Every structure is written in C-alpha cells, then in structure tokens.
C-alpha cells in the first residue's frame, strides 16, 4: 500500500520514530518507545476503592505507587485472566505540568518498529462527537495495521470516549486493512 503521499500528521522532533508495538485482541498497537519506562510481568495489585473497572489497582514500583490500567478493558474488550505471562508496559505520561507513571496491561509485547512520520496515516474522522486524539495515526507493517497510540492523551486526565465508543472506533479502524 502506498502511503507516502498521505499527509502526515503534525509531529515534533525526529521524523523517524521508534514505537514499541504490542498485541491486544485482534489488533496491534504502538506507543512511542521514549515514553516506555520498562516492561514487566503482572503482579498482584492493591485495589483502589470505587475506581473504574479498568483500573486494576496500584503496585509498588521501587517505592513509587503506580496505578495499573487494563487497556483491554479500557478499549471495551473482554477481560482476560492474568497470568505470569501477562505483560505490563510502564509508561511515563507527560501532562501539562507534571508527568505520571502508569502501567498498562496488554496481551503481549510484539516488536519495535521504526516509522517515518510521513508514513503515518491520520486517524479517520469519526464525527464531531468522538474524540480520537488519543490515536496518533495508523501505519501498516507488511500487511498488518498498527494503531499508534498517543499515551499522553490516552492516559492523561482528558475526557476520553467510553469503553463502548472506543471498541467501536477500533472496529471501524479495522475496515481499511481487511
């Protein structure tokens, strides 16, 4: 697929960016590698009372209290049971004034890819009601589509679409590749 003529989304810094990709359900996702702090196995969390279901609780990460978010559940996918092979990607989320460290639970870590920002397709428009800024863009890798996420927008304090909305967005994203 020729995407080189596609308008690239405005991004800062290097044109070539490295992304850590991971698998969740049927999709492959990518996050900026510079925002990834570490990848670790699942460990028991301490539940936070009255937190949304996708917030699995907090863990002690070398003295820091770090919340763990199940991205599957956040994206409206069904919950999987956790095992020793369940992977938590610890990311540093930059907010306006400070930054937060948050762990995200994914099915498996896949690869590190280098994507030229020119080859990053913008997110299709889902209408005014749906805020898709948490998706930085789409790129294809051989014949797979990778959804590049903007972790800062995804995990920041901004209002995001609900899990149902998210799952429908991601379903719709699949269409171009199939």
């Amino acid at each position, binding site marked *: 697929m020729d995407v080189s003529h596609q308008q690239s989304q405005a991004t800062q810094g290097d044109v070539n960016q490295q992304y850590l990709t991971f698998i969740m359900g049927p999709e492959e996702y990518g996050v900026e590698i510079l925002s990834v702090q570490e990848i670790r196995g699942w460990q028991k969390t*301490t539940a936070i*009372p*009255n937190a949304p279901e996708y917030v699995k609780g*907090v863990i*002690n990460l070398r003295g*820091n*209290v*770090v919340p763990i978010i199940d991205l599957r559940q956040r994206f409206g996918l069904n919950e999987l049971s956790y095992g020793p092979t369940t992977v938590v990607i610890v990311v540093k989320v930059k907010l306006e004034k400070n930054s937060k460290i*948050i762990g995200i639970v994914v099915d498996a870590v896949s690869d590190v890819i280098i994507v030229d920002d020119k080859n990053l397709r913008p997110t299709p428009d889902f209408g005014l009601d749906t805020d898709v800024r948490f998706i930085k863009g789409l790129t294809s890798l051989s014949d797979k589509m990778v959804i590049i996420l903007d972790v800062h927008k995804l995990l920041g304090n901004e209002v995001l679409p609900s899990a149902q909305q998210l799952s429908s967005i991601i379903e719709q994203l699949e269409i171009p590749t199939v």
Partner: protein
Amino acid sequence: MDIDLSQFSQVFFEESLEGLSKMESELLAIDIDNFDQESINTIFRAAHSIKGGSATFGFTEVANFTHLLETLLDEIREQIRPMQPQHVEMLLASVDVIRNMIDALMKDQAFNDPALAPLMKQFEQALAQPSNDNIATDNSAANKVQSPNDISMSETTPPDTGLDPNLALWQIDFSAGEDILRCGNDPIYMFTELAELGQLKVTLKDVAYPDVDEYEAEVCYLQWRLLLLTDTSLSRIKEVFEWVESECDIQFTQLERNAETDAQFISPFDAKALKEANKHASEETFVHKDAPTPNLTESQSALEPFNSFDMSSALAEAFEQQNQPSPQAFPIEQIETKTADEQADQIKQVETNQTLTSNTTAVSTASEQPNTSVVARPTSRSTDINQSSIRVNIEKVDQLINMVGELVITQAMLGQIGQQETINQETLITLRLGLEQLASHTRELQENVMQIRMMPISFAFNRFPRLVHDISLQLGKKVDLVLSGEETELDKTVMEKIVDPLVHLVRNSLDHGIEVPEQRRTLGKPESGTIKLNAFHRGGNIIIEIIDDGAGLNTDKILSIARKKGLVADNEHLNTEEIHQLIFKPGFSTADNVSGLSGRGVGMDVVKRNITELNGDINLSSTPGKGSHMTIRLPLTLAILDGQLVRVGDHVYVVPLMSIHESLQVSERQINDLGKDQQGHRQEVIHLREEFIPIVKVFEQFNHQADAKNIEKGIVMIVDCNNKKVGLLVDELLSQQQVVIKNLEVNYTKTPGISGATILGNGEVALIIDVISLTHLSGIGHHKEHAA
C-alpha cells in the same frame, strides 16, 4: 566562559528573603531613642548583600531601590544622619516592596507595585534633607546628599558622598615576579578583588623593560603602586596576594590620610569618569590615565583591567595613548602598527564577547556592577524555579554520610556471609548481628533524613512581630507579642501550610480578642494586651498555642448569630464547648463591622480545614473577659504516620492511629437501625456509653467483599471525625506500625475516602483511609447525629 547565572538566582532569592526577614526583625526591635549600632549594621549588611546580589544577577530594579535604602542606612550607620521614627516605617515599607519585587522575579512576572514610586520619593526626600552633622567639612562639596539621578552610580565610586574619613589608606607596592603570568596568576584578578574591598587606585611604576629582542610575552615586567582606601583589615588585603606572595615582592604601608591623598581618589579624571559612568560602566578608569608612559606592554596591560569593565572607552583611551609620541625610545614602528591591528581585532572580539557574555561580566564585577548597565535579565530561567528548596545544616548532611557509610559496611558484611558455601552456627550468629545492625542503621538513617526536613518554627513565628506591629497600629490597640519555643522544629511542608492559619488566628485575636486601651483600662487590665505564641513538642506532635488576654469568646452572641444564620436550630441547646465549635463553621462571623482584617466569616472554617488536612486538630478554650487559648496540634511530619492496619475482606487498609479512640466488638442490642439511605445502605448507629455513634461500613463504601457484613460480626473502630465520633466497621485489626506516606495523586487521581498510600513490609501497597472523607462518602457528615 559563559556561565548560566540563572542556576544561582534561586540561591539569591532565598538569601534575599532571609536577609529581608532579618532586616524586618531588626527594624522592629529598634528603639529610636536608644538603638544598638550593631542592629543598624545588621540591617545595612542585609540591604547591602541584596543590592550586590541583585546587581550581579541584573535585577536592576531591586538594585536601584536597595541602593536608596543602603544610602540612608549608611548615613545612619556613620552617624551622619540621626535615626528618625519615619525612617523605620519607610524601611519596613521598603522591605515589603523588595519582597514583592523578589516574588515577582521568582515567578518571572513583571513587577508592578504602586507603593514603589511614592516610597522612592520618600527616600529621596529623606536623603535630600540636610544632615545635621558636619563631620566631613573638608569634603563638604563631595558630601552633598546624593541627587536622585546619581542613585544609579556604582558603589566603589560613590559619586559625591566623598570619602569616608574612617577608611584607612593602604599603599601596596607590588612587583610581580617574572613567572607570575606563567603560573596563571594574572594581577588583574587580584586588582579586581582589591577593588571589591574599597576604592582602588592603580599606578604603574617604573618598569625595567628588556631590549625588544629579548622581550618575552610570557614574562611580566611590571610593577605597580596600589592605593587602596578601605575599611578592611590588612590581613584581608594580604589574603588577595596569598598565592603570589612567595614569588613577588609586595610591601604594605598604611599612609596618613590627608587632602592630597584623598584628592587622588577624586582626581579630575575621576570626575570625568564619573560622568562617563552614567553612560558606561567605567570603574577604575584612572588606572591607565595615571600610568606614566604609554608603550607597548603597558597599553596592553592597561587593556586587561578593562576586560571586565568598560571595554570601548578603555580601548579608545589606549589608542589615544598609543598615538601619542612615546617619551621612551621605542623605535620600531612595525610593532606599533601590528599591535594596533591586533588591538583592533581585540576590540572586535571583545565587543562581541561583551554582548555575548554580558551576564558573565556581571559576575566578575560582582558588587561593582554598575546599575545603569543594561544587563539582559536571563529570560529563560530554569523552569523549576518554583520548586521549593531547603537549606540544610552541613552537620546534618555529614551525619547522613556517616550513616550511609555504616550501611555500606553492614551491607558488605552481609554480602560476605551470603557468599559462604555453608552456613554453620557461627555464620548464623554473624548474620543475625549484621541484620540487627542493618535494622538500627536503617532506623537512624530514617530519623536523620526526617531531620533534614525539620526547621525551627521561628521561620513561621518571625513574621508575627511585624504583623502585630502593623495591625495594632491600624486598630489603635496596644499589644505585646510574646514568642516562645521558637526553636521547636517541625517539617518544612507542615510549616509552610500552617503559616496562613496562624496568621489568621493571630489577626483574629488582635481584631476580636484584644480590646482598645480605654476599654482595657476600665476593665482593670493593663493597657497593652498580650498575645502569646508558644510552640513545643509533645509525643510525635507539635503543639502551637495562641493565647491572648482579650475579651474571650462571647458565647451568647455566637449562639444568637448562629441561630440567625440558621446554623443552629432554635430549639437546640448547646453547651459552651459546642458553641465555641460554631466559630469554625463556614460563613460564621461575629464582628459587628466587617473590617479589612477579619469579620467576613471566611476564615475560621478555612483554618480548621487546613489544620485537619495536615492531620492535626485545633482546640479552643475561652473565658469571657479573660481571653482565649487556641491549641493547634500537628504531626511533626507529613511523611510518616502511625497507622493501624485493618483488614476488610482481602484488602488491607491503614487508619491513622491518631484518629482512633477505641476499637471494640459490639453486641446486637447496642445497634439501632435507622432505615436505608438513598444508596440502599442500611444506616445504623450504636449505643455506646450514653452516646449514639453512626457506623460507616467500610466494605460498603469501598464496594469490597467482606467477612463481616453485620456490625456485631466485625470490629468497630471508633474514630474522630471533625470532633464527632464515627464507627468504622472492619473485619479484623492487624498490626500497628509506622508507615511512610506516599501520595496517590502523583500517578493517579484523588480518591474519595483515601488520603494516600503506603508500602508495607511485604512490598505491597496499602491505602490509607481518610476518615473524614470516608464519612462524607457515606453521607453521615451531612446530617446531624440522630438521637434514637
């Protein structure tokens, strides 16, 4: 070469604020008729270092203004001008203005205080008044009071205050050793340092130049005679030459001061330089003017002193001299031309350098930095400027380092045991010993680290003399402020958060508590009221007391107002204690007149809330006519908490031990059912020793599964919630331990019912229950206790 000054500005801000507080406290202590010379000196020194620092960093506004203060203070110090009461008030006002200036600088905002201009005018007027002393008649012309235009003059060349008769005149004959330059000891640095000590006049003495063929650029052939007018000691002057003493010939002689010697410092050229100084930044411009004969080496050496001063004018002078026919035979024209070229290059270079390194220039000239020079204020100051920092006694740091050293040793010892193949009885004993050591070192380390955050409460108390002074003046009341226990230490964060509540309480005491003098006299009390601030440690807490001997709380009035505002139902009967608590309700105010100080009814509730947020509490006792007594209890630190671990289902929570009254099992007949609330939760109270205590079922509020769903099956912890008792239903009590508080909001968000998190011995996270917010969550806080 280019130093980023901004990294130091934080230090400057802190030092300046410290200096300002010192000035303030000294000013308040001054008794006009009989003041201590030393306190004037202290104030002067503080003002002086603020001025010096601000000039260095290019904060010209601050420097200019402080200069006025300094001039006035200097005249008072030198007893040229008597101290007058309005001076104290002016100086106090200017402390505020400077503080605002520095605040603005810290926040990188434009400074805009309407108080500045009138205050400057006041100072100028005060300075313009002729001083009634004629000590320095000799220099009367020079002794004229500074005109406002001259404020901007630099310090080492005071434009016309003339020469202080108390300064000593030192003559230093300095023959530099040949190797001095090779050793990296450039005389210019010494001269610059000397110039900081007082007024310096440098003259080049006869120089034995070698034949031009033998001339070596790295050899210093120069000799100088330096005249230094200073108030520093000889040893301090000698210190400047410490590094070169052995290789140079230096002679120090103290000269008698007379008109002639003084005149050298106010030479005609000096006057010219002064004029220029308004435009340029010229300092010891007379250095080379007085140099005997311009020639190659000299004009080059004359260049050097100007590196950090005023390049352009210096170079112009140097050229002038070079174009003059040289009396000494120096025939080779080429050299001159060449040097001229070189110098032209140098000019360019220097000029570029100057623009590039204007900040650096400011450093090297330190306090002599003339105020008029336009030094660009660093625009991109580091972003963490608002981060608070702490100044730690070096002793505390040393202790820490020792501690860490011990830890490393213990760790090495344990490591050795770990490497042994077999473990026998002997190694086991060593292992136990090592672990014991490790435990004690860790504990000590923890205590020491906590110590670092500790600061004496005087940092908070110090602002009160001023506050009381100002407010009592404003209210026409006479108040003595008594401070005690100022050395009591508490956590810096706690201190920062307690200052505002304290200010509020003291203000209230002043405004509502202390009566006006006439009224006090009729009541048979001393005319001056007393407000006492006291601090001391008790247990793991710090207690701060605010005691006044004023009117006390008027319970009838409080009650009637509370009824009027609907805070208390008409038929409700309250005891004195409960009435006192009413003043902490939002929207409550007893003041007949709302004044600028207090009476708006926002305040006491905020005070109470702030203190509760710090895990502390406030108590009040008051006797009508005798005064009030407020007691604030605060934890020493926010970082560590004594906690009770409790289990709710599979979850472990920490409840602050401080808020727990008791824990007990209740029997079924003690429980009264009040029906269901909106959430479908059963509302129950227990009857305990004539009290009805509402129960919060923790598992319900937190949506957990629990073993004990009924009150009689679990454990009820009676906790304190805003001076009311609430029972928390939990499954089991676990251990009690000190826990290190971790902020949950750093990486997550605020969670109702939870104040923070901590890490338990097994590495797992446990959440700390916030009793008040949990009670709110359950809805109990919104109702009054329902009597069964």
